[in-house]
């Protein structure tokens, strides 16, 4: 019982990160019909730019309180990622609007490689230790169930950000314009909406969430690396598809469900496979889910009509 509860908690932590990143995939897909495979790289840039900021600050002022350092890291990571996403849309994707679907897709993969390579040049090939500014020492709220302050923060911050995003999209004038643009660019422009601005904004918002996700991810595992965006990016993409790509609630649900399946699955994978696979194979779940969803329910859990979006 405690193990299950423990795995659910772990799943919620990872799932929240997936959900934040999945929102970026799903928003861009919703408005452009584009799967931005470079989105995982934005997470990586968030983590590494925060790392650089924090390390340099520690270098000059070793006595700064950890929370201040973390805040400074985020304060640099978020605008950095927003800028990267803005440039990516402006320089690569915008000119491909209306092109056959394969062109932007291949471009997205290209952008992803480009960003990874640039990151490798800037930050090197080595793994970096990411300072764990929020304690990772587990607390034991229930006997046999552990959760660390950093994990609690991840869940809380993610929930807060998701709430803020949903409020923005559903309750504000800007959000209304985003939804209108997602449905019909041409008619949105007839309403006076500057469609290019709304699309840029969508990229930038998704990037801000990914930046925070990157910092949380690195804080949790204590590691950052130029290729660290690949796996969470793929998982978040899976989460977005699982929830129904294009659908905000779906991305959040998909992220949490995927996190839970992975964590709970990892706990029982040895039993399932009679000891053949152990918990280090937990990544398998994401891809089994991705395959299954694409085969049996391509619209995802909450999606309707995906296939008709061009």
């Amino acid at each position, binding site marked *: 019982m405690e193990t299950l509860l423990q795995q659910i908690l772990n799943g919620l932590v990872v799932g929240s990160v997936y959900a934040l990143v999945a929102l970026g995939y799903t928003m861009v897909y919703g408005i452009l019909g584009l799967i931005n495979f470079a989105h995982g790289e934005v997470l990586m840039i968030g983590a590494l730019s925060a790392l650089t900021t924090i390390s340099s600050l520690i270098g000059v002022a070793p006595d700064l309180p950890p929370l201040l350092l973390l805040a400074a890291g985020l304060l640099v990571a978020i605008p950095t990622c927003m800028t990267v996403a803005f440039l990516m849309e402006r320089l690569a994707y915008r000119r491909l609007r209306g092109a056959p679907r394969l062109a932007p897709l291949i471009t997205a993969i290209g952008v992803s490689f480009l960003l990874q390579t640039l990151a490798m040049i800037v930050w090197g090939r080595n793994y970096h230790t990411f300072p764990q500014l929020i304690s990772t020492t587990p607390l034991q709220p229930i006997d046999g169930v552990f959760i660390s302050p950093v994990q609690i923060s991840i869940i809380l911050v993610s929930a807060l950000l998701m709430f803020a995003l949903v409020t923005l999209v559903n309750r504000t*004038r800007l959000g*209304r314009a985003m939804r209108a643009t997602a449905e*019909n660019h*041409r008619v949105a422009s007839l*309403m*006076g*909406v*500057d*469609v290019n601005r709304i699309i840029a904004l969508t990229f930038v918002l998704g990037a801000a969430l990914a930046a925070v996700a990157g910092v949380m991810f690195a804080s949790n595992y204590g590691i950052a690396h130029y290729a660290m965006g690949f796996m969470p990016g793929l998982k978040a993409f899976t989460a977005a598809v699982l929830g129904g790509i294009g659908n905000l609630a779906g991305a959040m649900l998909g992220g949490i469900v995927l996190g839970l399946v992975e964590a709970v699955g990892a706990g029982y994978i040895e039993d399932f496979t009679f000891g053949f696979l152990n918990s280090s194979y937990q990544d398998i779940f994401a891809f089994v889910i991705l395959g299954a969803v694409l085969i049996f329910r391509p619209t995802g859990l909450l999606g309707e009509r995906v296939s008709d979006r061009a």
Partner: protein
Amino acid sequence: MPSDGVKTLLRLAGVQVAYGAIEAVKGVDLELFAGEMVCLIGANGAGKTTTLNAIAGTLPLSGGSISYHEEDLARLPAHKRLRRGIALVPEGRGIFTRLTVEENLRMGAYIRKDADGVAADMARVFDMLPRIHERLHQVAGTLSGGEQQMLAIGRALLSRPRLLLLDEPSMGLAPLVVEKIFEVVQSVRQEGVSILLVEQNANLALEFAQRGYVMESGRIMLSGSGRELLANPAVRAAYLGEAS
């Protein structure tokens, strides 16, 4: 004919629009004076929708020019043309089907900052279109065709246009609904909004409009007052369903 001193609001000179290699509009000259209601009629595929979209700014010109209030619109994207007062009710209505009726109307007022003015205009739209008022919180995709057309017109009015472009507002609607829609158009016009109306229903359009243009294969073939065109045998034969 408008007398001297009436200002030209909109002027198309030699307007050409192409879809790739297909030339849809091949040199259209058209003028609309402030306060006027003009209609553009013509058979399917004549290029009427293309012309309206070019005026609204959602299609680029391949030749010629469009000016509005003496300003060349060439470099002005669609979203800025709305700010100048040009609103298009597009062919097929262009309702945001996933938004509610109210959200659609609010999109119509997207460019406005005067909350009080918007509220007042909203109330006037509800007055004219009570059906829309009753369905305020419904998802717009669930409205009937007639209701969607009314919503599209109400939405366009919320931007406070000075020139309203209407693309076949009667399309696919029952006669009673068409009548209602033309009543609304008429009252909008009485408030001083200029109107360029594209219609298949030439009888109806020429009855309401002061002047009309007849379009055929991307060109203007004829123009004149509504009464003249209604009396013209060629028009009667081609568009009013009479044997010549």
